[in-house]
């Protein structure tokens, strides 16, 4: 049983222009001590997905299940959820300046967070714990800095203070929403390093939301790629980067300038992400897809296994043998047979059979 198990989560917001379908049936799970990276472009629903878990999307119509440590978060009353939020599941937001109150001292804000969940802690004890936490996240001279206001901290220090606050109640799960996007590269390296060390110490599960594939390559174990409110592809980090199946994942990877191809033209995904009010028919990615077939225009693909053991799933009609992993998948099946893992081999064979050679013409 995973620490967090999200099943078929759907979130939509009624607006004057129509229903915004922000999240359209996403499932994933996180285990203790693991990190899942959720990647996608602006508007792909990655932030709404995680904020819904914490009851932070008022006005949204929510459907589905999110079992955290045995309880369904989506059925909790606001006062019950408040006990979970912060204590069991902590959040780190992108912009540390707007997430800290400008008129209160940093130490007071951390102590307040602790005292909000445990009234038996005195103000003095709270401040002591804040000093300790600031020291743990690498803020020099924490005893002095605990009395500083947020504006006296640099961007990296504010993000450290946010991490200290998130850690204050030893949560089981931390949701980090673009935690390093606003930071410079060397500071980002410091913060990612800190995340890694703290996770090793405490065994916390981490959901890392980011649009930066470099960050994912660095710290994630598993990756969920989202497009237009749906999971496009989900797999272990290495499969996503080295054997992507979904054309969107491939497109994202090929859009990044990298040193081996410096000076060449980049191969971006054409067009724009769709409106979440008027989604394209069939596969939402089809208007931008280089491999689009007739079937993609009418039928929505489901997530289906494309690799070894069924952990690598992709929502695309392309045959398993069509995209980047063509030969590899067949090799995986053969290897599974050789190793006597017949159930895994059968699963792979099934996924190949389920995706017969392209029915329409493949426009590559």
């Amino acid at each position, binding site marked *: 049983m995973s620490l967090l198990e999200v099943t078929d989560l759907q979130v939509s917001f009624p607006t004057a222009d129509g229903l915004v379908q922000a999240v359209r049936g996403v499932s994933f799970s996180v285990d203790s001590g693991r990190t899942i990276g959720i990647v996608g472009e602006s508007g792909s629903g990655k932030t709404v997905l995680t904020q819904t878990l914490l009851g932070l999307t008022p006005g949204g119509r929510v459907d589905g299940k999110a079992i955290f440590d045995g309880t369904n978060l989506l059925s909790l009353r606001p006062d019950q959820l408040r006990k979970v939020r912060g204590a069991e599941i902590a959040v780190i937001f992108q912009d540390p300046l707007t997430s800290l109150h400008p008129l209160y001292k940093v130490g007071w804000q951390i102590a307040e967070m602790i005292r909000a969940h445990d009234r038996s802690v005195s103000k003095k004890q709270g401040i002591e714990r804040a000093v300790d936490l600031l020291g743990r996240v690498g803020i020099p001279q924490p005893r002095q800095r605990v009395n500083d206001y947020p504006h006296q901290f640099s961007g990296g220090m504010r993000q450290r203070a946010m991490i200290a606050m998130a850690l204050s109640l030893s949560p089981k799960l931390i949701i980090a929403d673009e935690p390093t996007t606003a930071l410079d*590269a060397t500071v980002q390296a*410091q913060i990612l390093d800190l995340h890694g060390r703290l996770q090793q110490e405490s065994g916390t599960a981490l959901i890392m939301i980011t649009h930066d*594939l470099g960050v994912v390559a660095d710290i994630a174990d598993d990756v969920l790629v989202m497009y237009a409110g749906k999971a496009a592809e989900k797999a272990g980090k*290495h499969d996503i980067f080295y054997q992507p199946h979904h054309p969107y994942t491939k497109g994202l990877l090929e859009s*990044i300038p990298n*040193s081996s191809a410096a000076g060449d033209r*980049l191969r971006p995904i054409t067009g*724009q992400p769709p409106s979440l009010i008027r989604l394209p028919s069939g596969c939402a990615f089809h208007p931008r897809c280089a491999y689009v077939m007739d079937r993609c225009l009418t039928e929505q693909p489901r997530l289906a296994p494309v690799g070894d053991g069924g952990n690598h799933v992709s929502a695309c009609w392309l045959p398993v043998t069509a995209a980047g992993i063509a030969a590899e998948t067949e090799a995986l099946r053969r290897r599974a047979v050789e190793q006597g893992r017949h159930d895994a081999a059968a699963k792979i064979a099934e996924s190949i059979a389920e995706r017969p050679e392209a029915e329409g013409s493949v426009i590559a």
Partner: protein
Amino acid sequence: MSDTLPRDAAQPRPSAAETEDDVLVRVENLVKHFPVHGGGLIRRVVGQVQAVDGVSLVVRRGQTLGLVGETGCGKSTLARCIAGLIPVTSGKVTFEGRDITNLSRGAMRPFRREIQMIFQDPYGSLNPRHRVGAIIGEPFAVHKTATGAERKKAVQELMERVGLNPEHFNRFPAEFSGGQRQRIGVARALALRPKLVICDEPVSALDVSIQAQVLNLLSDLQGEFGLSYLFIAHDLEVVRHVSNDVTVMYLGRIAESGPKDQVYETARHPYTAALLSAAPAADPDAAAQRRRIILTGDVPSPINPPEGCRFHPRCPKAQDLCGEREPVLETKLGDPVTHLAACHFPLQAGEILARDAGRDRR
């Protein structure tokens, strides 16, 4: 749009002995200090923010100079000084051999046509109450180069060239996505056929797939119009992709500069090495193998920068000399003369700065 032929974009970069004709912009020992006022009634000047402190660089025709550095290193201030948007404290900026430092508004006007800017924030840099046609056509109006139907035609040609639908002439910026807005910014910058375009973090606010579209557009336009770019970004991979030469700034000074491959392959300055090692690569195996140099502490205040080498309090290689004497920007260890670094103890080939080697010397 096609009457301007590519100038010399396609030609390879000449060797170290360039002619002076090759230089479009030359910046010599540029200094920009901002006064800090006290809180009293008289508002006495109590200090100087040394935003840019003695920077020299050259932008060559048809080429791209990448300028990298972290927040507060002075790269945007430098760009604004070159564009003549703010007066400089001292130093000299020459454009095609003519001194354009601190010119009066009238004297600067002809140069404004030649030097254009593309800004970071595609939301903040377009007037939300103006229609796109008016925004892109504004330079024609200011410089009185086209009117009426002629202007409209020119604007629509520009829109088409940057990948916007010319029929959207009458729309407002709010009706466009971030990437499209950045295309509007590019079209506006190109309207007067400038020679130099200063791009200040032009793709930082965009998603990767859109970022790649805009980078391709910028490179196409460079070939077509023979543009020179001063390309400012904090993303090292982006800078590597677009630049011919790269200059690394730290706290108002140049740490290292040279041809792109030189700087990226054989970084001499420990700060450059730290920046390069910190940039996350989208490759899990490379990420696992890489030894990151984690710098300790933060960038010091430019009001009161450290003595000697400005990087020394955070430098893993710092010795006593670094806090005493400022290093000169010069060629190191048999590098080509175009590759300069300001460091007393430059990195040898293959030398690795160990992880966590940084000492906190504050």
